[in-house]
């Protein structure tokens, strides 16, 4: 029955929505769908290829992905090799000229900001590391702001008739975002200097912004599943070092961080990581609010 209901809702929506030529945005991850929404509002028709519960390193192929990519006017993804396992294949299969690499319709957010941990020498024996540096940039609000400005320019270039509209919404977003950053930084004061253990290196930019230290990862090497000897080593390390919490995303396996937490009494926290990763993280503002609230709670502040 829920199917029938949602079917009716969708049909009604199709009728209700005016068929104006909204710009079609194909976002690889929910954070970019959310950012596009902030800047483009109702002028954009936004599709997110993944949800917060999915590991974006690898996804299953569905026909709708190709169909959406084919009609996209702008592809907004993280880039820096994060989607290397599927985005090139999808672009090739969709053969939409507007969104191929190098075109206006191809916007790789992480490639427009400075990335941390760019390897000096590329040696794959170090694990699944990205040649372009750590791609998980959206959890630094300052980098997100730069990306918002560039995305606004790109939208204006693709759709000049609405450029002023995008610009006005960007300015509004900037004001609200800057105020939020000030609030978050004041809130996060107690977190400064704390050490954490993370599952994967996807928290690099958040921790860097908050002045926190990642002392270890549950994965022995990026992309490799946690194993017994590595976890045992971590347990020893935790005994010698004060660590405030063990953090993971909604899509990562809970067992390794729970195991370590059980052995060391250091709290294990699941953070939303991106928009949709928890009920309260329904947009970018909610994402940071919720992330900080959970971290403050875990650290006992």
């Amino acid at each position, binding site marked *: 029955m829920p199917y029938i209901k949602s079917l009716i809702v969708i049909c009604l929506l199709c009728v209700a929505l005016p068929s104006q030529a909204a710009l079609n945005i194909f976002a690889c991850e929910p954070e970019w769908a959310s950012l596009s929404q902030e800047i483009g509002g109702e002028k954009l028709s936004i599709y997110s290829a993944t949800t917060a519960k999915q590991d974006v390193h690898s996804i299953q192929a569905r*026909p*709708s992905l190709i169909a959406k990519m084919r009609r996209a006017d702008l592809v907004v993804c993280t880039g820096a090799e994060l989607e290397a396992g599927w985005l090139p294949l999808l672009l090739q299969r969709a053969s939409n000229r507007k969104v191929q690499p190098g075109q206006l319709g191809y916007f790789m957010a992480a490639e427009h900001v400075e990335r941390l941990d760019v390897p000096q020498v590329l040696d794959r024996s170090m694990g*699944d590391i990205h040649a372009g540096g750590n791609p998980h940039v959206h959890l630094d609000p300052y980098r997100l702001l730069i990306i918002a400005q560039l995305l606004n320019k790109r939208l204006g270039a693709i759709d000049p008739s609405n450029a002023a509209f995008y610009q006005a919404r960007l300015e509004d977003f900037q004001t609200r975002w800057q105020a939020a950053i000030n609030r978050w930084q004041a809130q996060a004061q107690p977190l400064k200097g704390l050490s954490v253990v993370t599952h994967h290196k996807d928290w690099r930019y958040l921790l860097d912004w908050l002045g926190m230290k990642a002392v270890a990862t549950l994965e022995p090497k990026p992309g490799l599943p946690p194993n017994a000897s590595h976890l045992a080593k971590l347990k020893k390390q935790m005994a010698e070092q004060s660590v405030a919490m063990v953090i993971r995303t909604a899509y990562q396996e809970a067992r390794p961080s729970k195991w370590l937490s059980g052995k060391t009494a250091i709290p294990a926290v699941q953070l939303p990581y991106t928009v949709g990763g928890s009920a309260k993280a329904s947009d970018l503002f909610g994402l940071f609010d919720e992330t900080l609230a959970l971290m403050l709670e875990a650290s006992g502040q």
Partner: protein
Amino acid sequence: MNLDGLDISILGPALLAGLLVLTTHIPLGREVLRRGIIFLDLAVAQIAGLGVIISYSFGWESGSWQIQFMAMTAALLGASLLYWCEKRWPEVQEAIIGCVFVLAACAGIVVLSSNPHGGEEFKELLAGQILWVSYEQLIPLAVVSIGVLALWCSAYNKRHPLLFYGLFAVAVTSSVQLVGVYLVFASLIIPALAVRKFKAKGLAIGFIIGALGYVFGLCLSAILDWPSGATIVWCLAISGIAVASFLSKREKVLD
């Protein structure tokens, strides 16, 4: 619900890939069933993947043809080992195949844990996704399929078991990287299982079952926005059951 995906340019290459896979897998699947070694394809594919991982840990850098060469060589070696086992211990061949499968899989985990280099290619080799296939990729698959079929059919009366193991290794290794292990297994076993009682007509009916499964699976995955490979596997099973029960009813009427 989404009708955008119902587009021949989106589903066409995947459908053609499926039909090509079926041409070789139905006759080979019937032989697999006759010999009672249904997990042979999983073992062979896993060994092909292991070959790729090991070649990486030797530091051999890869163009795509070298990876193909390593995968094929490993699969052929694995298949000849399994042929030897069949000759030596025919009564426990199925159990041996199962053991070879887990051994190859675990060897892969061990090698990758010290050197993750090659892990990507390993994953790609086993987890092909039918929807990403392009028409250009189908040309090598078509050539391999024609070769396998020609050898298999020309040797109809004097099929050596080693010929079967060799052709099987080649067919599975070339198809698994395009459509993935689940679809290879389903294409191999389900149509063959559904037509097990038929002799001469079995191939044609099996192909119809397979084709129906792929067509409905792809359309359903487009309409409901489900992952294509997994949806096709289910549709293959449904089509197999439907056709088999239809034919068995008709047989009773004819009796």
